[in-house]
């Protein structure tokens, strides 16, 4: 099956031909299939931001190819506006883009830009608010800037969901959120894939959440995709990750630590439950040793 997104040998240089020239991407390759949750991880400056901005046409490919839902992003006649309806982009701290006085109006901004009629807009807003967990009647006439930080972020996300895009790109969705709200957001992202069949691309620093959500992960370093694989494959290479300035989830670090000590445990584990099971398998937890005592 053809991938919904394909990036081939993508290069990008900012401000070419000026004294401030910087190379951001040096040949990135990426492929995403329908319904996947793919995560892009990497330190600051690795080019993640530049890469995802290609996906909805904010940046056009200078060198290399990008194909999104069968469209060639190098095509000068590309319907960019139409593309942005299909690829929804949610930037870091998206609550900073809110501008309408009332919540409902801000969420309706997207659909209105595409000339949808009033009934359709209303329907979309209602659905989008439901998806992020904001009650339609309760929140639609609230003053946008009277909401809490987490609520405003939900409004911003709903604003993009109202376009009903097939692909969703999240840049650091949980940045600045406390653990409770963070957890809630991540669950909702999974629901979007499971229930709405959206394809999701997640840029994140948070290894723990990436491990929970991602089917596949791309590791970006200095403008190149240097590692790629399923989360299990990737996190089982903790040593490699550390050399790139990234950390495996804590659970993975424990398993690696044990491996290091010569204990043959599996290292490709992602959750506390899996780790508990594996430890239960490799260690005898029933015997009570006289030395360790009770």
């Amino acid at each position: 099956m053809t991938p919904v997104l394909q990036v081939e040998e993508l290069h990008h240089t900012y401000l070419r031909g000026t004294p401030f020239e910087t190379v951001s991407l040096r040949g990135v390759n990426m492929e995403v299939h329908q319904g996947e949750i793919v995560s892009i991880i990497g330190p600051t400056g690795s080019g993640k931001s530049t890469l995802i901005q290609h996906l909805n046409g904010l940046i056009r490919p200078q060198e290399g190819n990008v194909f999104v839902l069968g469209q060639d992003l190098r095509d000068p006649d590309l319907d960019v506006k139409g593309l942005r309806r299909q690829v929804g982009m949610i930037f870091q701290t998206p609550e900073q883009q809110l501008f309408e006085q009332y919540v409902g109006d801000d969420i309706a901004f997207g659909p209105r830009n595409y000339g949808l009629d009033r009934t359709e807009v209303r329907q979309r807003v209602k659905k989008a608010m439901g998806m992020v967990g904001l009650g339609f009647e309760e929140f639609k006439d609230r003053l946008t800037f009277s909401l809490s930080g987490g609520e405003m972020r939900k409004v911003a996300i709903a604003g993009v969901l109202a376009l009903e895009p097939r692909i969703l790109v999240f840049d650091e969705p949980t940045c600045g959120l406390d653990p409770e709200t963070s957890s809630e957001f991540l669950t909702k992202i999974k629901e979007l894939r499971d229930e709405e069949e959206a394809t999701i691309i997640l840029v994140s620093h948070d290894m723990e959440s990436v491990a929970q959500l991602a089917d596949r992960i791309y590791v970006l370093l200095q403008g190149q995709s240097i590692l790629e694989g399923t989360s299990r494959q990737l996190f089982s290479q903790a040593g490699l990750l550390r050399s790139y300035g990234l950390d495996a989830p804590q659970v993975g670090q424990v398993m690696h630590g044990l491996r290091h000590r010569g204990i043959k445990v599996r290292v490709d584990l992602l959750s506390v439950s899996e780790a508990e099971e594996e430890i239960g398998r490799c260690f005898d937890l029933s015997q009570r040793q006289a030395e360790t005592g009770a």
Partner: protein
Amino acid sequence: MTEYSAFRHLTIGQYLPYGSVVHRLDPRFKILMLCLLMAAVAFATSYTASLILLIALLSIIHMSRVPVGYALQGLRPALPWIAIFAALQLIFYKGQYGPEPCSVVWSWGFISVTTCSLRLIALMVFRLLEFMLLISLLTLTTSTTELTHGLERLLSPLKRLRFPAHELAMVFTIALRFAPTLAGELERIMKAQASRGADFGEQGRLGFIRRTRNLLPLLVPLFLSALRRAEDLTLAMEARGYTGGRGRTSFIQLKALPSDYLALALVCVFCAIILVGNLESIDRQVFTAVSDCVRNVFGFVRR
């Protein structure tokens, strides 16, 4: 295609730290010299004066090791406007300008080009170019820090007259400090709204009213962000013991060297010559010489 990232690198008169003689001058003196030269440019009324000023400025630029081409490049966006303005003046100016009486050089209907209007636009073009070169010269060779400190020091004697020199300098510094940050923010907001299908003229011709309304999704978030930053910054400043200008010492020290005084003296003399010297007579002499020469050449050719 809209180049969003250009905003981030737009600095007010980009400072190029080449460390030349000009760079090392004390900023207070540079500001004073700028004022003197501006006056000279504004009041120069002869071709000779304008030409001398232009040559002088270009030589100073050369001394500052800034590539002359780069400095002139900054003038390019203004050229079409200058051309339009000059053309209008050329066509419609009918009055007296300069010491010589006007004579018509060419006319067609109500449009007439006289020697006076020619003189006017020539000097005007020179003047505009020189103003821009002067300002560029200052900002290319002086960092924003130096500029604000220089300005504050120059204005500080006015504190006795209740003039808020320190506050002004602080406002100026903070504005310059946040200019690139806010430009980056604007870029982010544009991208976010564009990603929701907003039009920023990418698709070409939009009505003026429509285009202004389209600015709301940009201006409101930017404004709110600026307010938020201001609030945070106030807290941070208070937390660091800021209580206004009184009792503060300064990390940046400006020391005037003999070379600064010398440079200032030279500029004074130069400007005096430009303003007070009878340079129009040189104009006249040059003209007579040139027209004699031309007449001789034509005469020779005709024969």
